[in-house]
C-alpha cells in the first residue's frame, strides 16, 4: 500500500518533469538539448513508476 502510494507520487512528479521543460523552453529559460534529456528521463521514470500500479488498476 505504502509502495503504491510512493509510486503514484513519483509517477505524478515525472509527469510534471515531462511538461516543465517545454514550458521553460517556451519562456526562453532552457536549451532544447536539455529539454530533450529531461523529457527522456521523465519518460523512463513514468513508465517505471506508473506501470506497476496502473497495470494492477486496469487488470
Amino acid at each position, binding site marked *: 500500500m505504502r509502495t503504491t502510494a510512493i509510486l503514484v507520487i513519483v509517477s505524478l512528479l515525472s509527469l510534471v518533469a515531462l511538461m516543465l521543460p*517545454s514550458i521553460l523552453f517556451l519562456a*526562453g529559460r532552457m536549451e532544447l538539448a536539455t529539454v530533450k534529456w529531461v523529457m527522456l528521463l521523465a519518460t523512463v521514470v513514468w*513508465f517505471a513508476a506508473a506501470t506497476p500500479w*496502473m*497495470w494492477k488498476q*486496469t487488470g
Partner: protein
Amino acid sequence: MTAKQQPQEVTSSSEFEREPVPASRLLGFKSFIGMYAGEHTAGTELMIGPLFVAAGVSAFDLIVGLIVGNALAVLSWTLMCAPIATRTRLTLYYQLEKICGRHLVTLYNLANGVMFCFLAGAMVTVSATALGVWFKFEMPGLNDLYPNSVGWVVAVLFVGGMIAVVAAYGYQTVAKIANVAAPWMVLVFIAFGLIGLGQFITASNAKIDSVSDVWTLAKTTIWKGGDPFPGRTKFTFWHVMFFAWFCNMAMHIGMSDLSVFRFARKSWYGVASGTGMYLGHFLAWIAAALLYSVQLYQVDLSPAELQALASAGLLEEFQSHEMILSADTIRQLIAQGVWAQPPAVLPGPMAYRVAGLTGLICVIVAGWTTANPTIYRAGLAFQAVIPRSSRFRVTLGTGLVATMAGMFPAIAMKLLDFVALYGLVLMPMGAVIFVDFWLIRKFGLQSSFAERSGATFNWAAGAAWLVTLAIAWGLVEFAGVQIYFVSLPGWFVAAALYIGLSVVYQRRIRPAIGQAEAGPTAAQG
C-alpha cells in the same frame, strides 16, 4: 481519430454481447473521461494537424473551426448516441441485428472491418516514419501514392508485422500498455506544441508579451491561410468544422459507441467525449500543425529536399527567411522542377526535432497502441463474417492486410479524405438506428423489425444504407460537393429512406409477420 481503446472493464465484459448490461455493471463518469482522453490522442493526430497546414488553413479557421466542430461532436455523442445506449444497453452489433437481421449485419461488419484495416494501415505508416530517423531510408512524400523505397517497405513490414503478431497474441497486454501510456502521451503531444511555438518565436524573432501577440504571430506567420499546397484541397472554416465534427462520425452519429455508453449510468456521460475532442482533436492537432509549420519556416527538411534547394541556389534565401515556403513558392519550386512535390509530412522526424528520443517513442507508441485495438476489432468484425475461423489467425491476417495498406502512403497522406469517407460509409446505419429507436413507431411501423419478423436481411435498412452511399457518391463525383460536406445531408437522406422503404417493406413485403407481433421491444421498454 482512432478505433476503440476502451477501459479494461468495458472490453472484458464480452458476456453482455447479446443482453442488456445489468445495473450492477454500470460505470461512473470517470471511466469515460480517461477512456476518451487516451483514445483520441493517437498516432494519426500527428498526420492530421500538418495536413491542415498543407490545406492552406488560416489561424482563425483552424482554431474556431476546431472549437465549434469538436463541440458538435461532443453534442452528437451526448444527444444522439448515449441516450439510445443508456436505454437499450446493447452493443451496436446486437442492436443492428435486431433491426437489420443477421445477414445485413454481416455486410456491415465487412465494411467496418475493411475501413478499420485501412485506418490501422495509416497508423502503421505513422509509426514506420519513426524508423526513418534511425535508418535514413527514403520516406514517402506528401503526394506519394505508392511505396517509394525498399527501406520504407521493410520498415512498414517490420512495424506492421510486429503490431499484427502482438495484436493476435496479446491484445490485452497492449491495451494495458496503452492505458499506462495515455497520460504520458497526452502531455508529450502538448509539449510538442509548446516547444514548436517556442521554436517559431525564436526563428521569427517575434516579440511576445501577451496572448494577443501569440495570436498575431499565429495569424501572420504560422497559419497565414491562402492557397493550399499543390495537389491538396483548400480548407476553410467550414472544412475544419465539418472535419472535426465528422471525423469520428462512425462512433457518435454512426452509433459505434453504443457499445461503450451501454455501460454509462447516465446519458449525459456523453460529455466525457469532450476530453478526447479538446485534448486530442484540438490541442494535439494544433501541436502537430505547429510542428509542420516550424519545419517549413526553418526549412528543416529531408536531405533530398535540402539538396534540391541547394542545387537550385535557393537554400540560403529560404534559410534566412528572405523567402518563405508558402503554397506559392512551393508551386514555383515544383514548376521549376526543383521539387517533385511539397515537403513531406513525416511524424517521426517532426517529433524527433522537437523532443528527441521521447518524441520518437511517442510516435511509435501512439501508432502502436492505437493500431493494436483497431486491428483487433477489424479481426473481430471479419470473424463475425466467418464465425468458425480462429480469432488468432483472423487477427494476424487482418494485421498483415493493414501492413500492406500501410505501405501505401496514400492513405496516411490523404488521411483527411479517408477519415471523411470512413464516417460516411458507416453513418447511414446510425441514422437507421436513430429512426428505429425514436421515430419509426410514430409512423405506425415497428422497431427492431428483423427480430420480430425473423428476417435475416431487412431490405428497408439495407437499401437505405446503400442508396444513401450511392447518392453521396453521386454528389461528390458529379455535383462537385466535397466529401466533407455530404455526410450531413446524407444522414437525413438515410433517415427518410429508411422510413419510406419501411412503409413498403413492413406493410407490403412482410405484412403478415410484421402486424402479428406489433408492440414495443423489451429492450426499448
